[in-house]
């Protein structure tokens, strides 16, 4: 039986690991290589590493650093940040990334996503879906000044045959007050592609609630691991108690 995945997310700003609140107010939280080493020793299901300022600052992700992070990991790793060419993807796969996570380029260049999927296969192309609610409807948060409805974007990426959606509630990001179940259920109803739910996990109950109220198979988190004593294993132990299939 397929196990649900609890995935630590490392967000990097070009200098160190940071954790944002609602995609602003970055707070320094440490060193990426050290963090990767700790997560590997804890046997986490998967790791996500995102350079969250690469696209905005118009720079490429630091391959040396990513390589050092990946070297610590004997589990799957997904890497994102500033990916805009086939070479960018190839460079990341070559140093051991299993999946790449694309955001900005997916908003502006659907052809690039199609091309990436046909070149590397669906399974290694993940798409960031950063959603924010405005007047009761979900839109894609972006710094490009674009107005993109969530549903339109999901439809478009479904047609591109991507491998995964990393669905983040921007409104709940870093607040540690629970996940946006409506968002998760909404996206789940629009696609048959695997999803990772992100944004809002602050205590163990938030995870049991998420898995009770949605059909999600993977969850990504940062704050709870940076700012509390809880580990991914604590969450899995609790999920097991309520009958969710986990890898222990």
């Amino acid at each position: 039986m397929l196990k649900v995945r609890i995935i630590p997310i490392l967000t990097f700003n070009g200098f160190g690991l940071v954790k944002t609140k609602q995609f602003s107010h970055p707070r320094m939280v440490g060193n990426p290589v050290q963090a990767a080493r700790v997560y590997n020793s804890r046997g986490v299901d998967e790791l996500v590493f995102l350079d969250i300022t690469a696209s905005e600052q118009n720079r490429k992700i630091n391959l040396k650093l990513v390589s050092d992070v990946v070297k610590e990991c004997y589990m799957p790793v997904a890497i994102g940040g500033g990916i805009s060419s086939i070479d960018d993807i190839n460079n990341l796969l070559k140093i051991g990334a299993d999946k790449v996570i694309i955001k900005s380029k997916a908003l502006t260049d659907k052809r690039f996503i199609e091309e990436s999927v046909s070149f590397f296969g669906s399974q290694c192309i993940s798409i960031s879906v950063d959603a924010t609610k405005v007047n009761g409807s979900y839109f894609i948060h972006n710094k490009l000044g674009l107005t993109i409805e969530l549903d339109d974007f999901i439809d478009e990426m479904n047609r591109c045959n991507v491998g995964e959606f990393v669905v983040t509630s921007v409104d709940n990001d870093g607040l540690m007050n629970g996940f946006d179940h409506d968002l998760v259920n909404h996206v789940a109803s629009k696609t048959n592609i695997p999803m990772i739910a992100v944004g809002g996990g602050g205590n163990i109950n938030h995870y049991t609630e998420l898995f009770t109220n949605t059909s999600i198979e993977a969850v990504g988190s940062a704050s709870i691991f940076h700012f509390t004593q809880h580990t991914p294993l604590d969450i899995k132990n609790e999920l097991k108690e309520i009958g969710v299939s986990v890898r222990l």
Partner: protein
Amino acid sequence: MIAIIDYGMGNVASIQKALNYLQLKSTVTSDHSQISDAECLILPGVGSFKQGMLNLRQRKLDDLLTKLVVTEKKSFLGICLGMQLIAEYGTEPEFCHGLGWIKGDVKKIELTGRRVPHMGWNDIEIKKPKFYEGIKSMDFYFIHSYHFIPQDESVIDSYVNYGTRLVSSIQYENIFATQFHPEKSQESGLKLLKNYFASVKG
């Protein structure tokens, strides 16, 4: 020496890292004489079946590998796409010929109520225990949209349940191939690789 075949289909670094961790000497190569001289061959790979075959042919590796593995019986480990390519036919993105070492074809996973790709940790049901001794958890990491359907069930090494039974590994004579990624499956995967190479390298 173990040769990790480099044919431009992704993630060769991870497999070499796992072998380094196990203190097994390996080289990443597409050089014909290096490949011919190796004790064991690993065909890794992610991406589409058609592209994979195209890349093998461009490097004239298809005939070489067939000679070494099928005729000369050199030990062969295929991983993910490297398992699928040993089939007779693939369908990603359209019908095409594979290496044809094991009778059968590779088809898209089509299941109602299941998300595709089949992605994440799933436990396997072992049919041939040879390489699995001492492995505590049978959860391995999967990431695939296509699956191998061998004609002869006796080659099946393990199954995985994803709404239906899919073939998760194959073992036939000198060929061992896994749909899951042992190099990404932490303790279980490293132990499997250790067992496998201990067995084939004597």
